């Protein structure tokens, strides 16, 4: 048994050293190489990661720019559209206000005309009365100068009163016309203010809606 063990040891030892030569040394070299490769790969991965992050950030930036550009484009289109609408609407509103002002002036004229006719009618009635009264005085008091004088003075007084009232009427009517025309001018002035308010409100609403449409629901 001991002999067999001795003979086996003679064969096994050189075989073991041969296997060591054949397998152990390349395994170490392989592990070393693998470690090197791993380091290289990690370095490459790090570079790739960095480059990729930069690329994605640049793309996001670009997309943001595109979005801003699109936003600006739609916004300026909306501004142009509503500037045109503003101009058209402004013209129509001015025309509507002018028509109304014209109508108010016509009504003022109509009013002044109707009042004047009324006064002329009354004035004619008073004048006819006065003429008849003078005739009456002449017929009834031909020989009574005192009575004639008293009555004629009374009629004259009435006519003077009428003239004074007519003057007051003309003065009042003139001030009415001035007041009404002022009111009509204020109508135009306030109308222009209304146009501004309406259009400003309308345009800000529309632009807001347009921008909201681009941004989408939040």
């Amino acid at each position, binding site marked *: 048994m001991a002999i067999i063990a001795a003979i086996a040891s003679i064969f096994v030892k050189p075989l073991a050293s041969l296997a060591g030569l054949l397998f152990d040394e390349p395994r170490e070299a392989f592990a070393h190489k693998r470690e090197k490769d791993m380091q290289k790969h990690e370095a490459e991965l790090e570079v790739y990661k960095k480059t990729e992050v930069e690329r994605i950030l640049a793309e996001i930036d670009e997309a943001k720019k595109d979005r801003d550009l699109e936003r600006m484009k739609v916004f300026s289109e909306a501004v142009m559209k509503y500037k045109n609408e503003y101009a058209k609407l402004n013209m129509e509103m001015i025309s509507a206000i002018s028509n109304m002002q014209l109508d108010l002036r016509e009504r003022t004229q109509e009013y002044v005309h*109707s009042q004047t006719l009324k006064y002329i009618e009354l004035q004619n009635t008073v004048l006819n009365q006065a003429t008849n009264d003078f005739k009456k005085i002449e017929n009834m008091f031909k020989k009574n100068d005192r009575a004639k004088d008293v009555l004629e003075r009374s009629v004259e007084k009435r006519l003077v009163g009428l003239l004074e009232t007519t003057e007051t009427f003309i003065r009042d009517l003139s001030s009415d016309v001035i007041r009404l025309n002022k009111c*009509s001018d204020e109508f135009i002035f306030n109308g222009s203010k209304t146009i501004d308010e309406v259009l400003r409100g309308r345009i800000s609403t529309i632009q807001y809606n347009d921008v909201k449409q681009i941004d989408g629901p939040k």
Partner: protein
Amino acid sequence: MILKSELEELLSNLRKARSILVEEFVSENPDIFTAMFKYDNDNVVMNMYIDCYFITWLNYHLEVFSCFNAKSVSCRNWFLSCMSDLISKYLKGVNTDSHVYKRSEFAYTLLEKKKAAIMHIIKCSDSNKLKYNKLVYAVEKDKKLFEREIAKLKEEA
């Protein structure tokens, strides 16, 4: 496309406005009839008063519409187009071709301002009527005093 519910509500509001118009005339609303008798011999002022009444009535539609919540664009356009037709049909001094009256906010303000301006003319007319009545009174008084004077002098003679 107008929603059926919106259309029904709009038509019901228009019907309500028409019924108010009829009701006020049938029941002889003093606000209207007082003026009708007050200015019955003054056509100019009477016409102005009628216009003022119609402005109030037309603006009632716009007031109702502003409280009406569910408004689609087509429903709004349809209603304002109807209003534009009504305004041009009932009011003088309104250019029918204009699209201005299809914008409720402007139409309402403009009509209210017009009403205020017409009421101003009516107010002037009222104050002038007082002066005119005073003048008629003075003429009648002078005439009577003159007749008395004649009678007195005739007696003396």
